[in-house]
């Protein structure tokens, strides 16, 4: 029989307050409106990882050791991602969204907000390349986490993750003879994405919570990022995403997110409800 789990002190909302206050004052990041259910679990995870018994201990380490902060950010954020995540979403981009944008424009500006380790960016480049329109595209890839942005820049992935990526890619392409591996070079246990296809990408740290609107785009992807925010923060971030879109530009959110409960909903129309693609129709 399994032994009962060791008793652990519950993380109280007041502990979380102390932590987010320190981070705001000392480092200029705002976590107070992250979704409680996942944020609390992330804190628990950091406590377990570094064997800290209490949130107070974590707060004092963060206070006295700025070097630790970057590491903390990497652990507190959720970076799980895949290439061609939700293959049917990518099909709609290829068949409908991108052709529609290029109908009226010679250039297409794309923002990956919360790009994590860059699998989404790689997927976009492969898709645009296969459509023969890569030279018309400018991509911005941003994330809160410096370390993950560096990984995205390297576009180097563990070979053992490629199985899932290949499966997704085949579901997307619908053609068994296409080969995702042809875009990668194997180096030891890793695969490196063809850098020639990444020349139109700018990688940059950017905070969706406190950061400014820095440009306008035809297509913004912000998938599986706002699920870590509470409703209040979602509303704030969405209004800045809205501002970052040209009129009639497209917004894509995660397949299990929805604009229905958001204040900004009436400034968008639904392009594809299953894949959560919206179009800005009002400024």
């Amino acid at each position, binding site marked *: 029989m399994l032994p009962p789990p060791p008793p652990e002190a519950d993380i109280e909302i007041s502990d979380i307050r102390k932590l987010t206050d320190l981070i705001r004052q000392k480092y200029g990041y705002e976590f107070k409106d992250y*979704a409680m*259910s996942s944020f609390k679990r992330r804190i628990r995870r950091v406590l377990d990882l570094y064997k800290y018994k209490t949130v107070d201990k974590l707060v004092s380490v963060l206070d006295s050791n700025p070097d630790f902060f970057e590491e903390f950010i990497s652990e507190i954020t*959720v970076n799980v991602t895949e290439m061609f995540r939700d293959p049917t979403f990518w099909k709609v981009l290829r068949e409908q969204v991108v052709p529609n944008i290029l109908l009226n424009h010679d250039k297409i500006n794309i923002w990956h907000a919360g790009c994590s380790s860059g699998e989404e960016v790689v997927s976009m480049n492969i898709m645009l390349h296969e459509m023969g329109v890569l030279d018309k595209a400018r991509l911005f890839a941003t994330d809160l986490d410096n370390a993950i942005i560096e990984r995205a820049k390297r576009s180097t992935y563990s070979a053992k993750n490629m199985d899932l990526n290949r499966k997704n890619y085949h579901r997307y392409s619908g053609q068994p003879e296409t080969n995702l591996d042809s875009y990668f070079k194997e180096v030891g246990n890793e695969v490196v994405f063809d850098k020639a296809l990444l020349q139109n990408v700018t990688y940059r740290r950017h905070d969706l919570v406190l950061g400014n609107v820095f440009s306008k785009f035809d297509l913004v992807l912000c998938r599986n990022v706002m699920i870590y925010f509470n409703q209040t923060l979602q509303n704030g971030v969405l209004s800045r995403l809205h501002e970052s879109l040209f009129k009639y530009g497209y917004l894509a959110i995660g397949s*299990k997110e929805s604009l229905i*409960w958001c204040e900004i909903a009436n400034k968008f129309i639904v392009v594809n409800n299953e894949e959560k693609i919206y179009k800005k129709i009002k400024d």
Partner: protein
Amino acid sequence: MVGKYKLSNKYKAVVIGGSAGSFQGITQILASLPKDFPLPVFLCLHRLKHVRNGFVEALSIKSSKPVVEPHDKEPIKRGMVYLAPANYHLCLELGNSLALSTEELANNSRPAIDHTFETAAFVYRDKLIGILLSGANKDGAYGMAKVKERGGLTVVQDPAESMIDAMPNAALAATKIDWVLKTEEIISFLGELDKVTKTLAPA
């Protein structure tokens, strides 16, 4: 009027977890739920990570109530049955809403029963009933311990009846379980809960 399970009218939600071997049981439970069962039910069942469609439809066929896979931050409604979507953890969030997460697998699973149960226990405290069905790993044991810790009521499927008894047994080892029940008994347990909640509900 006190029924067999001595339930009171304080309960506000039911959370159910299951894995390998639980499909038949959960189908029977959903088929027998009173049509106007007043509490929200949160289901976390282990499922294929990359099959987005089909599961909720399969559960809905015999269910007396519609089963939905919620979106992130969907407001919780009374009497709805919510199913954790493929490849997302389903959590209870403050402010009467649900939250989804793509965090790491827990106990090799996403959705993980522990996450649903723990967050539900945090939100509903002693007003929660946790039910754990058949399954092949220990997911849910920690979650059940949290339900108990916060004062909730714990029920596991009788290991003798479970197709795979590892999951109920892990919960029995992890915490005090209030009722060990066969599927038929879980159905009458929920029937009693339905009656108690409706007839004794404060006006």
